[in-house]
């Protein structure tokens, strides 16, 4: 090869890099390791984690059973090692699957259009706010304090320099739902959108009708956020919302210490040209056969550059594939049955605690436990990971923790937690 190129040594190929820019020593990284060593290195680190510990953590990341089939499919080379499907003729597999995914997201959320996925739930929130600003021509965002605290931090980071002021809305201390009086006081003719989460960070299900009416009466858009996608199997789809965003992790994605996950964004048909990210559309080939391709790319950065709807340049195709396979396996009946199991487990656990809020909850709830850190320490001695202490995010709830139970939480584990917490009946 060197001969064909016309050089005698491979280093001649980089001779044009100026000397002051070149690295003149080996990288200080140990020599290559064997496959055995690599597997061993990660196994050893995994073993020092929480293998075998029952856990009651939810708060945006949920433990759900992962059917074997889904992991088999995502390891198909043709899905795993392909690129973004720009060349439609040799990417119909990915394109067809994304079209199915977009359809399922619409069916679950009651929206009319959905994109091919976002980085995750947290980054989908500011993208929804930016979309609302483009649609309404207004600039203010109101976000409920019961939206995941880390999602709100991400919203702040994104909006800070885009002339998009963000204000927070309190919650009703009795029900744990949005404080409607606070919304009524703060919403005005500059409000582009109101962002709420349901089930919210406390696990409480929001009541949308009155809320949506107020938001729409002021000409603003309602953005509905979810972190627990399984709730969509049981709760009414948020038809009152204008934009729905959320996190798909519950659909077969391992917790993986926080990622990779995938977000969704779905909306009404009339807003389709303001949606960020990739979209797959149905079309035909020259023979008139059904085919799919990426579409409406004039919204995107590679065409519009600084005038694009977002700088986003990817989706989370493989994660969305995993979710699509998962939803195909569970289907119409299964998702509901799964959701009922989650509801039942959480309510078994919840019935033993003094509820902090009266609002209905799905698979997590706030329990007043006195000293959450002390309880968690006692649980950890028993090799149980307790709930999330809330004082860090809500100082007024320093005596409470967020507890979650899913279909994977076994009754004996819950009974053990209750015993340690002194809550056995």
């Amino acid at each position, binding site marked *: 090869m060197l001969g064909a190129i016309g050089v005698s040594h491979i280093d001649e190929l980089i001779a044009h890099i100026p000397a002051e820019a070149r690295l003149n020593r080996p990288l200080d990284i140990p020599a290559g390791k064997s496959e055995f060593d690599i597997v061993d290195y990660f196994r050893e680190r995994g073993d020092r984690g929480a293998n075998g510990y029952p856990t009651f953590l939810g708060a945006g990341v949920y433990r759900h059973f992962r059917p074997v089939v889904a992991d088999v499919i995502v390891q198909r080379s043709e899905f795993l090692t392909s690129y973004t499907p720009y060349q439609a*003729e040799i990417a119909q597999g990915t394109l067809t699957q994304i079209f199915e995914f977009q359809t399922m997201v619409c069916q679950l959320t009651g929206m009319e259009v959905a994109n091919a996925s976002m980085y995750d739930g947290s980054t989908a929130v500011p993208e929804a706010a930016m979309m609302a600003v483009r649609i309404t021509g207004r600039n203010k965002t109101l976000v409920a304090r019961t939206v995941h605290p880390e999602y709100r931090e991400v919203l702040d980071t994104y909006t800070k320099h885009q002339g998009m002021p963000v204000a927070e809305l309190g919650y009703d201390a009795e029900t744990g739902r949005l404080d409607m009086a606070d919304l009524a006081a703060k919403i005005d003719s500059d409000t582009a959108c109101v962002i709420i989460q349901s089930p919210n960070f406390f696990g409480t299900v929001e009541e949308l009708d009155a809320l949506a009416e107020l938001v729409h009466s002021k000409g603003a858009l309602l953005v509905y956020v979810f972190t627990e996608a399984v709730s969509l199997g049981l709760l009414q789809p948020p038809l009152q919302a204008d934009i729905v965003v959320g996190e798909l992790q519950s659909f077969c994605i391992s917790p993986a210490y926080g990622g990779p996950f995938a977000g969704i964004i779905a909306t009404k048909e009339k807003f389709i040209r303001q949606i960020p990210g990739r979209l797959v559309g149905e079309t035909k080939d020259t023979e008139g056969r059904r085919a799919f391709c990426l579409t409406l790319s004039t919204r995107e950065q590679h*065409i519009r*550059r600084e005038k694009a709807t977002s700088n986003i340049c990817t989706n989370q195709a493989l994660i969305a594939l995993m979710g699509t396979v998962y939803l195909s396996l569970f289907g119409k009946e299964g998702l509901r049955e799964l959701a009922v199991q989650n509801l039942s487990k959480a309510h078994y656990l919840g019935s033993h605690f003094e509820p902090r809020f009266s609002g209905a909850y799905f698979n997590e709830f706030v329990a007043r436990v006195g000293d959450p850190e002390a309880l968690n320490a006692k649980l950890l001695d028993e090799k149980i990971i307790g709930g999330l202490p809330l004082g860090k995010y809500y100082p007024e709830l320093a005596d409470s923790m967020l507890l979650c139970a899913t279909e994977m939480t076994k009754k004996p584990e819950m009974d053990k937690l209750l015993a340690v917490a002194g809550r056995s009946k």
Partner: protein
Amino acid sequence: MVKKVRSHISQNEQLLFEMSSPGKKGYQLPDLDVPVVDPAAALGGQAVRKEIEGFPEVSEVEVIRHFTRLSTWNYAIDLGMYPLGSCTMKYNPRVNEQVARTEGLAWAHPYQPESLAQGMMEVIAALEGALAEITGMDAVTLQPAAGAHGEMTGILLIRAALEKQGNPRKKVLCPDSAHGTNPATAQMVGYDVVNIKSNDLGMVDVAELVKAVDGDTAALMVTNPNTVGVFEEHIVQVAEVLHSKGAMIYMDGANMNALVGVARPGDFGVDVMHLNLHKTFSTPHGGGGPGAGAVAMKAHLEPFAPTPRLKFENGLYGWDYNRPDTIGRVRAFYGNFGVLVRALAYIMAHGGPGLRNATMDAILNANYIRKGLEAFFDLPYQSPCMHEVVFSDDRQTKKGVKTGDIAKRLIDYGFHPYTVSFPLIVHGALMIEPTETESKAEIDLFIDAMQSIAREIDEDPQMVLKAPYTTRTSRVDETTAARKPIVRWKPSPAAS
């Protein structure tokens, strides 16, 4: 003659929704070991949905067959060369997939106690350290989820640092060869974008740059090697021009596969950059994500890094949330950890010497392709190329055939096309990046295919315009798709 492929049967398949029949399912839940709760009683009847209309009802074997059939409609690296310029489609080692599934890592909850998360934090620390060494930078954050997300993080860091000095400034400069994400990012961080013309070598025009940089300039976003595959030979001088006016230099690391072990951005003046772990560090593209966009920075930007930051105190790792100057969070939790595991596994398998060898092989492969094709396609820039080579379709357009048509014809020869029509400064660009993965035998087949297409264009351009011929679908009508967007399945009125 097509040597690499021949036609074979491909199965037809409906959409999931069209193959459903009532009552079919592909799951079995465990028996419920607590009393079943009535949803209407717990949530209120009005809060409970009826059935999910149109949702699939299929069996497990139907699911397996459905997605396996779809998969056979895709091209993939595991099938052959995927020479997409700037995308670095290299082999994705399978051991990386296995280690990412290590139970204690894959099932770790981000809020589990730090005492039970030391292993994860060690992985993060090890990767941060390796990437700092590779880039010549002082600190690394692994929080961003993708390359463009890393760009946003980097420009936010620059903005925060300038604000701390009293003036965030107004504009960001982008060469006209830049990826579209660069100007889109600068805009999202509140900057005006000023485009800088490239010179006739495909490099940043230093004289143009000197004219453009002033007290309102926050940064230059530069890709090096740039999108025509050329190392910016005046990069040290470019950095000096910016620094002399108090501005900074951001590097888009999309093309870092040309530099690992050979040159370090931190040594040639870059203040902050992102790395696409799904390019340079082999984590799978997965049909378009997930990726990860690590950001490496000089010490002066570290105080502004996203929270939380990994810290090491008294022999233990932990997350530091107390960072008064931080730009804040760019995503929930700590980043795409599963992707980080794969990237670290790649670095461990190669080691320092192996990483440099990979870089040199990638450069060798690109130069070999350039030599093999320069008699057939127009080479707009004569500058030496690094890991990718960019031709233009100038010669072929005289016959009415454009880069996009050549790309479609290449599919018939068994290859994924190169990157089409980018960068914008090259008319009708063919941007080819073979990566180090490809053997001489595979590259020879590729060169042979491209030469053959060039001859076909001379002899029968009409034939090339209708390619591809061997795929499941012939050319797909993208115009109609955009004019009347159908982005979800609906039951046909006749069926209901």
